């Protein structure tokens, strides 16, 4: 595809919806997953450092 220009690249031979729809969904979900996990990690650290009494840790036997 070295001869095609940028507009052809975005157009994807008419299949733009499908190709970019797939890639977009993949990128979006993976990004959301990472961001959400990082956010959860930060929240947990805050909760724990707020003190042992103020957090509801899970009880293990």
């Amino acid at each position: 595809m070295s001869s095609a220009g940028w507009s052809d690249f975005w157009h994807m031979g008419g299949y733009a919806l499908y190709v970019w729809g797939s890639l977009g969904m993949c990128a979006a979900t993976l990004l959301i997953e990472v961001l959400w996990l990082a956010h959860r990690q930060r929240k947990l650290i805050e909760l724990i450092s707020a003190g042992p009494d103020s957090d509801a840790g899970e009880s293990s036997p």
Partner: protein
Amino acid sequence: MQLGAVNWFYFAAPQRFYRLAGQLLPWCFVLASLLAVWGLYIGLWLAPTDAQQGEAYRIIFVHVPVAWMSMVVYLAMAGWAGVGLVFNSRLASMMACALAPTGALMTFLALWTGALWGKPTWGTWWVWDARLTSELVLLFLYIGFMSLHAAIDDPRRADRAAGLLALVGVVNVPIIYFSVKWWNTLHQGASVSLTKSPSMASTMLLGMLVMALACWAYCIAAALLRVRSIMEREAHTAWVQDLARSA
């Protein structure tokens, strides 16, 4: 337990593993990003247009890697669940629980990209292809694992039950795939196979492999990140308190 000179359980201690995971994380993410950029460059730019399917075939550069990963992650999940059951290790079960949502996400993406590939090439959003149908059943297996673990309050029992389910599932997955394949070929008239990808030029194969490695690195990174927050939930232990104080 020492098997020879190597202590295989060195990292089974939570503090050590937490530190290891923290060190590995950024490298895995960097590796995943670099490989993804390279793979997408090959797939979207370098690889030639297919004669039959046009540009739409480029979806295989994400569809095949995520489908492979959904199966690899299930195997890894069942493996860690087995380790947790046999060696009575909480950390191994936590790893299995950390892998499950990532695997389910990979399965969902395989189904989504498969549908988006099916529409322009075969005319329908959903095709009862053997692989897609098995992916659907695999998604149900992932969801079953996560639901079972969430439904049990006692963490030890939850680990055990979900671990057993994962092991039973991993034995079943080849059987399910085989039976669905049989079912698919029996009803040959109605079905078309999405697995008839264009004959692999070496560029395409390279692109697919690179993307597969990128997905693998991503899955490892996401699982390590998730297992760290699962471990932090054991907030009453001293090492977590120390960690929080130092953070």
